[in-house]
């Protein structure tokens, strides 16, 4: 569905991506994560067409038409809209650009937004849900979601995620999410991509990742195992290892623990800060 080939992009003097490749198949729910400033949001913006690559290309499945933006739902933390428009005007403008004959505003009505309010007067939560409503109205094939779920309350967050699950239940939808916090989206994700310095350091299915990253509580460093990071306590240490396989289980001195996604990503990132 999404093919990124040879992507190079600089932000002024900073080269964010150099010859970057990524392929995302249709219907996959994909998480892109990494430390702050590594280029995750930039990548999403490039995929949305809001930033232009210096070199290389980002191609979408021909099914999306000549201009893939018509079937692309992009929500970023900038929540960009014409701020001096009222909610009603913004919806009308959106409808006319996308050629929509109707607009299902059930989401917006959830948040009790007044249609005469100006966009700039809305709270972050209201604005996020308005954005979501706008992009869902065009029945997107691809959703590109950038970190916004952190800045809204738990209730709206759930509504937001429920929308995504609803659509996934009805039809194929390719979702690319950029997040640093995934406790409530963990079970939606199929693929985890970790970015570091404009490159992919980890690209695994979530099930494989969970099988391969373990925490070992031991007094001494486990031999011949790749350690991502460690936490030292007075009487023992925690070692985060990757890759693990079941064959190693007998040979390890120490208790082996499974990890949730947050802990796994933290282990990878922790290694970078060390």
């Amino acid at each position, binding site marked *: 569905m999404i093919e990124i080939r040879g992507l190079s992009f600089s932000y002024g003097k900073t080269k964010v991506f150099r010859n970057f490749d990524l392929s995302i198949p249709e219907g996959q729910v994909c998480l892109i994560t990494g430390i702050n400033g590594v280029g995750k949001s930039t990548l999403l913006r490039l995929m949305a067409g809001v930033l232009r690559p210096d070199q290389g290309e980002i191609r979408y499945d021909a099914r999306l038409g000549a201009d893939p933006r018509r079937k692309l739902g992009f929500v970023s933390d900038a929540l960009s809209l014409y701020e001096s428009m009222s909610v009603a005007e913004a919806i009308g403008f959106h409808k006319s650009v996308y050629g929509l004959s109707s607009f299902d505003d059930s989401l917006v009505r959830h948040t009790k937004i007044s249609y005469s309010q100006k966009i700039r007067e809305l709270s972050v939560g209201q604005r996020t849900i308005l954005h979501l409503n706008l992009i869902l109205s065009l029945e997107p094939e691809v959703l590109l979601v950038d970190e916004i779920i952190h800045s809204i309350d738990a209730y709206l967050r759930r509504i937001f995620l429920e929308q995504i*699950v609803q659509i996934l239940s009805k039809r194929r939808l390719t979702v690319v999410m950029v997040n640093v916090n995934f406790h409530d989206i963990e079970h939606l994700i199929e693929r985890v991509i970790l970015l570091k310095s404009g490159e992919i350091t980890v690209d695994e299915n979530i*099930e494989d990742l969970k099988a391969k990253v373990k925490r070992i509580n031991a007094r001494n460093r486990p031999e011949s195992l790749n350690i991502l990071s460690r936490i030292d306590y007075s009487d023992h240490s925690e070692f985060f290892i990757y890759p693990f396989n079941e064959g190693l289980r007998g040979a390890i001195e120490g208790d082996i623990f499974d990890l949730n996604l947050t802990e796994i990503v933290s282990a990878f990132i922790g290694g970078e800060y060390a």
Partner: protein
Amino acid sequence: MVELEGPPQIIIDAKSAVPVYEQIKRAIKLAILSGRLKDGEQLTTLREMALKLMVNPNTIIKVYGQLENEGFIYSRPGAGHYVRLDPAKFIQSKHELFREVSQDYISKALQLGYSAEQILREVAVLTNIGIPTARRKDKGND
């Protein structure tokens, strides 16, 4: 004696490396084998299950698909999924689960240093007194 009713409470352990679909599958199987979900009873719909658990619908599709393949449920096109109680299969699966649970208990007890004799005695004592959290059928297990 309490008969637990209603659809099973499925709690996914995010920390477990056991894949999500496997966890859900086991929970539903357990509910069927323990009689909580009765023969012919309809399962929560695919979509609602995905919403409830905030799980990718593809995962639920996989779960229901595998359960159907293993003979625990059947689907009526457009009309949901239903529990199927194949008596032979039921007995076999129940036995497997029983063995699994027993192995877990016994290995833990052995680890603590108790002998087989002591374990047997404990089982006799506990089944006599009654364990509050477990469901028992007075007719005994088949």
